[in-house]
């Protein structure tokens, strides 16, 4: 019996593009798990490491279920209420619907982008998965703002709501062909949709939920810098998929985006290092400072990665790193930034860095950086973006970038605030103080470095004891304090 199969359709399919899209998506997935999980797990106090990591694993899972059942189509499907922008169909949010059937094996499609980009060379599943890993990393990022006091149960409820209401809309407006896409604002791979949004959401959430225990704020040393470096390294290289995957084709712009990502990151890391050397109170370069600089570089180039040239990438890295460094040291001492307890400072390294990068696209975008080359149609021209410095001094792109940023900030802030308040009516957003004293042990009965003296219940005639109530385990929680 000789059968006649082919591996994939012979038209509208490129195994190279498909391979790259899946690879890029996997790299982005690795940025979340284990990347962010262990970066944050190492950065928090020992008493919160398990809680932090479990929040990361759970949120990643929750977002996927939501994404598959309804939210993917809210971000990338047909507009729910059709509007028109510049004569093209547009909208603010996609129509919810499942993305589960066998039809996902058909050619990928973002309805509002039909004809505005080359037709996809892979299946809808690949597009779905690539966009999922972006949707998933966003709440993991702003988890950094609320760890150390947020109720785990509330987190499980809020993440699905946030993805549905906040993330989908931001994504639709900029990537799904919605309003700001129609207006010409651009976000190469998430400086706004992901990072500005995460910074905003984290800050609002931290404000609504309230600060950590005073004790925890005063003893906020990280617990393991080797794991911070592990997570940070995965973030950096994983970002090759983050920015390299966003043209949706393994074309020249993908490679350029990868290079720019790395250049901006290197520049930002070094600027932070030098500023720490020259301007910090202790005048010493630090690993965690370098990692901060690295994140700033990665974030700030994200909205710009395939639009600027290498020189632009260096400028973005340098400028944003200097801005965020200053904000980190100075802005954090004043005004609401002083009051709101954003645990890991997401509002700086993601919010401000993402905003800065998005705006700088309006200045540094180089029209010779070709995202998609021109086709054969007569008069066809390539797709690229033009910033002030390359475009006859036109501020147009800058204003579009600014307005889009304001929309993202506003929508995210309001959405996050409302979701938290509403959920807060039904359950406590914050753990009780007694539980906060203890941390992981009270919430999960686990410690990140379990003592090797623990004895199985029942073994050695150990008398039965009641499960650890917060009260009881309170004392154990401070075990961190008892190590030299």
């Amino acid at each position, binding site marked *: 019996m000789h059968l006649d199969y082919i591996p994939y359709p012979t038209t509208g399919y490129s195994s190279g593009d498909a391979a790259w899209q899946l690879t890029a998506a996997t790299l982005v997935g690795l940025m979340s798990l284990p990347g962010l999980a262990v970066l944050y797990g190492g950065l928090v106090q020992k008493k919160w490491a398990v809680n932090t990591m479990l929040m990361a694993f759970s949120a990643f899972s929750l977002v996927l279920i939501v994404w598959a059942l309804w939210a993917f189509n809210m971000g990338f499907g047909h507009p729910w209420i059709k509007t028109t922008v510049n004569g093209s169909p547009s909208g603010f949010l996609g129509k919810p619907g499942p993305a589960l059937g066998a039809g996902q094996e058909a050619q990928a499609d973002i309805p509002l982008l039909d004809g505005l980009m080359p037709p996809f060379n892979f299946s809808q599943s690949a597009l779905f998965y690539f966009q999922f890993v972006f949707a998933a990393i966003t709440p993991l990022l702003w988890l950094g703002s609320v760890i150390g006091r947020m109720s785990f149960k509330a987190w499980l409820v809020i993440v699905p709501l946030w993805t549905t209401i906040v993330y989908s809309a931001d994504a639709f407006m900029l990537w799904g062909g919605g309003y700001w896409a129609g207006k010409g604002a651009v976000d190469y791979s998430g400086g706004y949709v992901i990072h500005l949004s995460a910074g905003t959401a984290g800050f609002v959430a931290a404000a609504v939920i309230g600060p950590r225990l005073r*004790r925890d704020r005063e003893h906020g040393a990280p617990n393991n810098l080797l794991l911070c470096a592990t997570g940070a390294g995965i973030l950096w290289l994983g970002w090759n998929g983050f920015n390299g995957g966003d043209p949706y084709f393994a074309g020249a712009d993908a490679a350029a985006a990868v290079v720019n990502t790395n250049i901006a990151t290197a520049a930002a890391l070094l600027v932070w290092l030098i500023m720490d050397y020259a301007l910090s109170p202790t005048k010493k370069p630090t690993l965690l400072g370098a990692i901060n600089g690295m994140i700033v570089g990665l974030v700030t180039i994200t909205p710009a990665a395939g639009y600027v040239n290498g020189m632009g990438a260096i400028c973005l890295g340098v400028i944003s790193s200097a801005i965020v460094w200053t904000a980190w040291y100075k802005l954090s001492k004043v005004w609401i930034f002083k009051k709101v307890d954003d645990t890991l400072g997401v509002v700086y390294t993601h919010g401000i860095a993402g905003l800065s990068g998005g705006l700088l696209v309006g200045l540094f975008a180089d029209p010779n950086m070709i995202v998609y080359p021109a086709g054969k149609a007569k008069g066809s021209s390539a797709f690229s973006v033009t910033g002030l410095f390359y475009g006859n001094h036109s501020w147009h792109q800058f204003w579009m970038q600014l307005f889009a940023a304001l929309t993202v900030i506003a929508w995210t802030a309001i959405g996050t605030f409302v979701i938290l308040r509403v959920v807060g009516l039904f359950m406590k957003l914050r753990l009780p103080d007694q539980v906060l*004293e203890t941390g992981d*042990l009270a919430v999960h*009965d*686990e*410690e990140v470095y*379990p*003592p090797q*003296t*623990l*004895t*199985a*219940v029942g073994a050695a005639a*150990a008398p039965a*004891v*009641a*499960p*650890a109530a917060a009260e*009881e*385990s*309170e*004392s*154990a929680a*401070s*075990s*961190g*304090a*008892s*190590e*030299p």
Partner: protein
Amino acid sequence: MKLITAVIRPEDLETTRRALAAFGAPGMTVTPLLSGSRWNRHLEVYRAEVLVADLVPRLRIDVLANDEDIPDLVGLLARIGRPPHGGDDTGRVWISAVEQVVRVRTGEHGEPAI
């Protein structure tokens, strides 16, 4: 010359240090240890296996002091552990005699070395 030893909860360390410093006794050693008692004991769960931690982390504070300061210091240390945590394990303070003390830096002996 005496040695006062107190077993305290880790979360009381700062209060203790501040109280001792205020009293004028900045020198001390803090030793992490595990304490077994009638009270303290909690469970941990790993992969559904329930494990008992029947030794819990405590700190041992040792302070060398002159005889005349002893009552005050004991009172001070004994007071710290008490209020909010009443009802379960709250520690012990004990005193033992010391025959000689030497401050290494100067070689001073006896009470001036404390």
